[in-house]
């Protein structure tokens, strides 16, 4: 067979192709392209750790340098996934330790990582550089000590929002004195004090350090020296932002910030004392990202700050900002792309802040580049949603949480179908949507009809029956992830759209009306899916088949059924027999 280009040339061309989608497409052209491509792929993303096995991965791609793996379903963040569900990274690390001696990067999300695992990582990969663990758990500061002690070329250690067993802060002192390679360090989730002098020395000897997120235990007094040791910082997460009022500390801090000419992102601000906020004024104009979502400061202070951050592209804030602060945001920050407003008192019964739908409407009017929204509030109207939709047809992510479940339009007392309908109809590029409030099947009709680019949909306490789910499954062509809780969706819609499930990454349904019998049927019909029934009441075989199950997680996979399911998960098997599961 004559080819125009020799392998080396093709490989060179492929080295410019980095997106997974494109790489996957390249590998489908012909057998020889598949071969060449698999040998030169360096980076792999595994959106569901149970969709494929480590063995399959290492067999197909022998030269990987960077791996990203995700484990638990998103609703695990809200305690809907029982303890012990799975998502263990250990088998992956074992396989990679044998197959990829030159592995450089591991990025994990919602996975269970043990200290043994971290030690294995630290000893297996001589050129290991990047470890990012987002919302992971199962390890302690001892595991961190192994990593920092053994990984001589460590560039990034980012613990994001992981749950770490914090034995002591001593692990940080395990960084060898010769370590100068650090580019990013995020320890914000740790509670224990680390040795300040070790931290200071580490920071000042790493000339490439760009991102530093401290933990709450680092007091404000220590910040000026740290900053002076790293004036090249691009991202900073402060520790506790409080101290007794001392003018010399304020001016010291102010001077230190003045030196940080590259600073673009600020976060932290734990326990913030407003009197110290002016210290950051020197950097406000350069800020593109500001995370005040742990700062319990009130609207006037927030507004004063924001009005100086004219170049802000991303703002995370508590609802203390109130409508008045959002008005100021809308006026001052014309480059705003992403806004997240978190609730200061989500479990309280009364409204504690003057934040309503109006704040979001203002921002949608004033900020032409706004594309990503996460908004917690206590009331909403269809009119407001329609206005927002018309103002911002360029929205890509829209996640609205009206705190009271099934809340109506507060003006008309109607469901919010029309409002969300307007969102999907106007925002043609919408990729992610989270619904709340009182919603009937109508809203799902709109979603199925218009949301053609929608990839992820989150539903809670919504809909009237199967028809709603049917609209979504049959209409949303780009749907990859669907998660539903406490909604009256059942068997009919699932069975009628069974084939759709193979085109998606995963489906989560909890406290819905899906029967055990339907699950068995789905397992039979769709061998390339894992249909996992999660039920803490004991085996579903002990109840009638028509009985609804507690939780259901369905995902496509080439790995077959899991071997590591806990006692409360049953995988429906292809023969329709007594399901696999350790019972």
């Amino acid at each position: 067979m004559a080819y125009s280009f020799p392998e080396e040339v093709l490989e060179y061309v492929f080295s410019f192709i980095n997106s997974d989608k494109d790489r996957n497409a390249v590998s489908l052209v012909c057998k020889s392209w598949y071969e060449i491509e698999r040998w030169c792929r360096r980076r792999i993303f595994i959106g569901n750790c149970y969709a494929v096995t480590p063995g399959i991965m290492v067999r197909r791609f022998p030269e990987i340098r960077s791996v990203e793996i995700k484990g638990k379903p998103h609703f695990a963040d809200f305690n809907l996934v029982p303890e012990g569900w799975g998502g263990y990274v250990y088998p992956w690390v074992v396989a990679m330790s044998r197959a990829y001696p030159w592995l450089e990067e591991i990025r994990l999300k919602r996975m269970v990582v043990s200290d043994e695992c971290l030690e294995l990582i630290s000893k297996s990969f001589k050129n290991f550089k990047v470890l990012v663990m987002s919302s992971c758990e199962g390890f302690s500061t001892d595991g961190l000590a192994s990593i920092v002690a053994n990984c001589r070329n460590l560039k990034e250690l980012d613990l994001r929002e992981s749950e770490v067993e914090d034995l002591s802060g001593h692990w940080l002192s395990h960084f060898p004195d010769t370590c100068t390679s650090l580019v990013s360090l995020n320890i914000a989730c740790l509670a224990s004090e680390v040795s300040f002098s070790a931290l200071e020395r580490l920071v000042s000897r790493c000339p490439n350090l760009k991102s530093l997120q401290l933990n709450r235990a680092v007091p404000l007094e220590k910040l000026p020296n740290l900053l002076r040791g790293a004036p090249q910082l691009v991202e900073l997460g402060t520790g506790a932002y409080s101290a007794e009022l001392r003018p010399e500390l304020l001016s010291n801090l102010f001077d230190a910030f003045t030196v940080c000419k590259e600073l673009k992102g600020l976060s932290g601000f734990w326990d913030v004392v407003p009197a110290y906020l002016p210290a950051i004024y020197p950097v406000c104009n350069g800020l593109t990202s500001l995370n005040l979502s742990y700062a319990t400061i009130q609207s006037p202070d927030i507004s004063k700050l924001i009005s100086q951050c004219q170049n802000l592209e991303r703002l995370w804030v508590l609802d203390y900002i109130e409508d008045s602060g959002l008005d100021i945001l809308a006026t001052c920050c014309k480059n705003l792309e992403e806004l997240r407003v978190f609730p200061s008192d989500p479990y309280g019964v009364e409204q504690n802040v003057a934040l309503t739908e109006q704040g979001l409407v203002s921002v949608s009017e004033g900020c032409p580049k706004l594309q990503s929204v996460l908004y917690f509030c206590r009331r909403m109207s269809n009119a407001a949603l329609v206005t927002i939709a018309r103002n911002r047809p360029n929205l890509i992510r829209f996640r609205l949480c009206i705190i009271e479940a099934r809340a109506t339009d507060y003006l008309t007392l109607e469901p919010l179908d029309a409002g969300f309908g307007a969102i999907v109809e106007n925002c043609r590029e919408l990729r992610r949507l989270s619904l709340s409030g009182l919603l009937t099947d109508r809203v799902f009709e709109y979603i199925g009809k218009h949301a053609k680019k929608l990839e992820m949909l989150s539903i809670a306490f919504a809909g009237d029956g199967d028809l709603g789910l049917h609209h979504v499954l049959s209409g949303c062509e780009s749907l990859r992830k669907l998660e539903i809780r406490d909604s009256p969706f059942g068997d009919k819609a699932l069975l009628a759209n069974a084939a759709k499930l193979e085109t998606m990454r995963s489906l989560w349904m909890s406290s819905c009306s899906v029967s055990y019998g339907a699950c068995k049927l789905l397992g039979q019909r769709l061998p390339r899916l894992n249909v996992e029934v999660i039920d803490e009441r004991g085996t579903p075989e002990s109840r009638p088949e028509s009985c609804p199950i507690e939780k259901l997680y369905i995902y496509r996979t080439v790995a077959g059924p899991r071997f590591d399911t806990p006692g409360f998960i049953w995988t429906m098997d292809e023969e329709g027999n007594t399901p696999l599961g350790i019972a």
Partner: protein
Amino acid sequence: MGTPGLGLEITELRLGLPCMGGKSKAAEKKRAFWEIDGEEDGSSSTTTEEKTQKVESGGKGSGNQVVVGWPPVCSYRRKNSFNGREKGSKTYVKVSMDGAPILRKIDLGPFGEYSELTRALQKLFHSFDHSEKLKDAENNEYVTIYEDKDGDWMLVGDVPWEMFTESCKRLRIMKNADAKGIGLHV
């Protein structure tokens, strides 16, 4: 000597056939070693209907505490916000366990929810688990109670976590048999 059945994890292996008919009562019991109802990782016995009723009977203006995971604030955020208490302040309480001669102390501060307390308690008393075997699980189940500000003994898990930490003065892990004796139905 060691009390069997201690330290049961939710991932335990169970011997025996899947539950049929008469065993459904056993199946109703939660796998968690300690029966803490209202634990944030889902109460096992409420059906969709019951949960819906809870929300509806709450009505406008009543708290959402009975609904697990709603509003959808992620656990990291929940743990690091919403406590009036200063982070770092220690809230140690004594923990006694029936059969264990020595009491322990545990800091409630770092936890954000009941499941974390359960796990920590299991770890704390792990050394009493001499048996790998899981027989007589029913007879050896324990229940966790606490003494509140008024001096009353209450079942752990009834109230929202924050309310619990404010009022809990000490903990006791009591044998289920004793609990039944005093009329505590779990």
